[in-house]
């Protein structure tokens, strides 16, 4: 590994001081002169025809400046299939449907006005179970698609299918086959800072959106389309306030943002809409529930022969990026472990439930739960230790997977071995002779994730502009965003390293589409890799310009010069070393040919966008990992305690080990919540637990100290060897825990969360099997 000055160091997050002193401005803290407060009237029915809307009483509330509905505003269509509208006309399809909105001088007036809006409905049949929604007689959630073409059923027309090898031949060659059904429900991001925006028009009709989006460039395009729908020709600028948590929730644009735009345009004043916590729970889009069916087989030695996965996803009433998560689920489905013959297909179904979105992991936690639990079942059939099963099938560097992913560096095997060692697997697995009500067991599960971007959009690129002043201060304008993960710090480290300046010299500017270049967004664990490579390349261009000029000054070939410690260093003759600032000023104030150093680079990874057969290589590199956990199950209460948790990740190279640990620790805790406690409870489309009292995210009391193991494989494509690490940490938590529960008490739980009542019921069913075999696994 090459020697570095700041890359690889535990540099504290650069906005830390601002955040600990309360100076950071989030959307909640931002006020603009003349600003109004917007509030949304949501549907009172889950599926109905809107007969009439009476806003007359709302309009009389003092302070109210506008009340809008779909009947007095232009239609703005949005979403992945453009099947959603900012305000709903004639028909509601879910409880979170926006029927009307108010702008008023105070939040109280806006709330009062919303309470006074009267809507008359005519109920329509609804459907909540995706399997039922697929039945021919099921009520249709949408009569037509966005273009008015009639839809004959609730199945989304999305081609999520991939097949490679010969699954039938693979099955015939199998000595053992395991088959299972796994079910995961809704969970939500729970960003501590709720969603919100401020829309503001200037007198020329140009829109500024103060936002907390994870996708400034794509959001800008969406808002431009909205202006077009409104018959406006203005420009759009997206300015980000600090983001109080993302996790995928801000990866799309939403009705409340378009409503703010409509209200701002109607009133001629800036309009702010910020969600309260209840809205954040019911009116944002959660992770999609999935029912997964897995069959996989192996030969007598435990080598995988085939894997077949089919799944049904509850899309909810409209379509966001959530419906595209199967394109990422395909990755572990076809390529986690070496499996020669694979088939994957996913069906997304409209229901009258809330519509779903991206959430950290983008589908891979759901499918990995199914694959990794099922793999343990297969290992048991073979009579193999699950550890040995995984080692026999681990991915290797240099392989091309059946779907066409080019595995370059791969620390999969090392991750498994590290987990086994640190968990003392050999001694702890299958402990015989446990007595008493508390039983311990260990389990593990692996993950594969994109580590070098993911081309799920037509461009997976990111631009960076760098300029250097007369004193060696460097401004870096990146298209990417910091959402708390530390991109601001990582970019500083990369640029400081390349230009040989102190990190305090580097200023990173993100989150303003008027000044920052294009970027596809903060998702797919791509920012360190893609934005990092973009910044690295721009910094190298600036470095080369400086060295070229310094070479002329020093009459030395640039190849023997370098930038280090704020100096231009001559490797062959240190007496020639010059302070960087001197070189910069000499260039700027030269008698002729004055120059200042600046460069721009747009980095587009050399990867494939998968369409048609869904084969190719959509990431420059892949991230690998293995989690191992020791649990203690209380057989009297069903409570599962995490005793020890080891998370081993192939990260390429840790640019900042402290921030990296924060990503892993935070993700694992989210993964443990997914496994054990988090659950959005919907009844007939209505969310019953829209608060932190009843939706249980883990607290400091529950916090498990994760033992992170960083496996560095130094990926040649990554900036300084790095791969992405934002999402991988929560992908294998749930199956690792489920597998450990099985080791402890011998019951398999195929439905998340693994809450005490489910564990207890499974234990009781095993003691006295009464119902049909396996029923215990499918009941709530």
């Amino acid at each position, binding site marked *: 590994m090459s020697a570095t000055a700041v890359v690889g160091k*535990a540099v*504290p*997050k650069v*906005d*830390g*001081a*601002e*955040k*600990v*002193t*309360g*100076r*950071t*401005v*989030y959307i*909640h*803290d931002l006020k603009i002169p003349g600003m109004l407060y917007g509030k949304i009237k949501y549907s009172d029915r889950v599926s109905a025809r809107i007969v009439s809307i009476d806003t007359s009483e709302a309009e009389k509330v003092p302070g109210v400046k506008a009340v809008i509905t779909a009947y007095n505003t232009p239609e703005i269509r949005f979403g992945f299939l453009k099947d959603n509208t900012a305000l709903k006309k004639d028909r509601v399809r879910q409880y979170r449907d926006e029927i009307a909105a108010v702008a008023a001088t105070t939040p109280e007036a806006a709330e009062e006005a919303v309470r006074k809006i009267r809507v008359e409905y005519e109920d329509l049949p609804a459907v909540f179970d995706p399997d039922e929604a697929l039945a021919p007689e099921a009520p249709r959630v949408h009569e037509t698609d966005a273009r008015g073409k009639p839809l004959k059923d609730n199945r989304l027309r999305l081609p999520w299918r991939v097949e490679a090898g010969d699954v039938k031949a693979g099955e015939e060659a199998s000595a053992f086959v395991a088959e299972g059904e796994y079910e995961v429900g809704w969970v939500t*991001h*729970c*960003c*501590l*800072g*709720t969603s919100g925006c401020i829309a503001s028009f200037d007198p020329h009709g140009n829109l500024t959106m103060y936002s907390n989006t994870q996708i400034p460039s794509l959001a800008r395009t969406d808002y431009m389309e909205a202006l077009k729908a409104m018959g406006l020709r203005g420009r759009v600028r997206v300015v980000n306030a*600090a*983001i*109080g*948590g*993302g*996790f995928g929730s801000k990866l799309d644009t939403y009705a409340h943002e378009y409503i703010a735009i409509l209200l701002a345009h109607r009133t001629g004043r800036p309009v702010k809409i910020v969600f*309260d*916590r209840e809205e954040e729970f019911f009116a944002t889009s959660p992770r999609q529930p999935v029912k997964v069916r897995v069959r996989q087989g192996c030969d007598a030695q435990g080598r995988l022969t085939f894997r077949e996965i089919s799944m049904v996803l509850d899309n909810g009433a409209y379509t966001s990026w959530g419906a595209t998560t199967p394109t990422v689920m395909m990755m572990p489905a076809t390529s986690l472990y070496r499996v020669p013959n694979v088939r994957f297909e996913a069906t997304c179904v409209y229901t009258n439930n809330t519509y779903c979105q991206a959430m950290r992991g983008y589908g891979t936690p759901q499918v990995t739960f199914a694959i990794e639990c099922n793999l343990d079942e297969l290992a048991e059939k073979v009579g193999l230790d699950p550890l040995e099963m995984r080692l026999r099938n681990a991915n290797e560097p240099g392989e091309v997977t059946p779907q066409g992913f080019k595995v370059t560096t791969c620390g999969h095997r090392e991750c498994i071995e590290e987990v086994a060692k640190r968990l003392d697997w050999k001694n702890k697995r299958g402990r015989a002779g446990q007595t008493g009500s508390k039983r311990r067991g260990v389990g593990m599960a692996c993950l594969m994730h994109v580590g070098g971007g993911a081309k799920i959009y037509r461009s997976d690129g990111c631009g960076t502009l760098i300029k250097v002043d007369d004193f060696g201060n460097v401004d870096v304008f990146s298209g990417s965003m910091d*959402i*708390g*993960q*530390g991109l601001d710090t990582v970019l500083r480290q990369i640029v400081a390293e390349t230009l040989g300046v102190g990190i305090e010299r580097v200023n990173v500017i993100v989150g303003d589409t008027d000044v920052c270049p294009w970027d596809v967004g903060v998702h797919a664990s791509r920012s360190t890799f893609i934005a990092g490579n973009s910044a690295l390349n721009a910094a190298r261009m600036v470095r080369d310009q400086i060295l070229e000029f310094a070479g002329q000054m020093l009459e030395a070939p640039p190849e023997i010069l370098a930038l280090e410690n704020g100096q231009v260093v001559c490797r062959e003759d240190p007496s020639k070393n010059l302070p960087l600032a001197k070189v910069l000023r000499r260039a700027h104030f030269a008698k002729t040919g004055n120059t200042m150093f600046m460069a721009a680079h747009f980095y587009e990874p050399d990867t494939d966008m998968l369409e048609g057969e869904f084969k190719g290589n959509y990431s420059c590199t892949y991230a690998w990992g293995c989690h191992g956990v020791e649990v203690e199950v209380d057989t009297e209460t069903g409570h599962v305690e995490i005793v020890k948790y080891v998370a081993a990740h192939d990260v390429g190279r840790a640019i900042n080990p*402290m*921030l990296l*640990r*924060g990503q892993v*620790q*935070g*993700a*694992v*805790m*989210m993964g443990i919540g997914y496994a054990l406690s988090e659950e959005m409870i919907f009844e007939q489309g209505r969310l019953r637990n829209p*608060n*932190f*009292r009843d939706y249980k*995210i*883990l*607290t*400091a*009391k529950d*916090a*498990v*100290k*994760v033992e992170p193991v960083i496996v560095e494989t130094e990926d040649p494509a990554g900036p300084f060897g790095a791969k992405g690490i934002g999402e991988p940490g929560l992908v294998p938590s749930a199956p690792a825990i489920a597998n450990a529960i099985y080791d402890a008490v011998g019951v398999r739980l195929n439905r998340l969360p693994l809450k005490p009542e489910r564990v207890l019921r499974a234990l009781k069913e095993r003691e006295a099997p009464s119902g049909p075999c396996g029923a215990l696994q499918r009941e709530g």
Partner: protein
Amino acid sequence: MERITIRFKVNGEDATVAVAPHWNLLRVLREELELTGAKEGCGAGECGACTVLVNGRAVNACLYPAVEADGAEVTTVEGLAGPGGELHPIQRAFVEKGAVQCGFCTPGMVLSAKALLDRVPLPSEEEIRTALAGNLCRCTGYAQIIEAVQAAAEELSR
């Protein structure tokens, strides 16, 4: 609407605010005094993002009636750093230990930690976890926050 005048100290300075009877302390701090360090994460006392100190005790400002603050000493996150802006040891530890990510929970976390360390200078890990149990964080997984409080406790006790 009827207003009641309350007088109290905020970060050592006198403040006089005419409040409506139903206002909570968070509204007074954020809207009337422009101290936006305290955040509203839930408005229901469940997340702790609005934690401030009232007479040294950590409270959820979103549930604390503004009129109850009359005569009290209130400390917000803006009042922790020294006169020259140097960070309080708890703040510094949060930065240096990687305890800050998105930062929305941070002001509340820092103040809950302060209330604890003022009462128990060298708390056990269990005491720290209990003191912070009312402050939710979705980013960090808490481990680095707990370590930051431990580091700050050691520094403050030296």
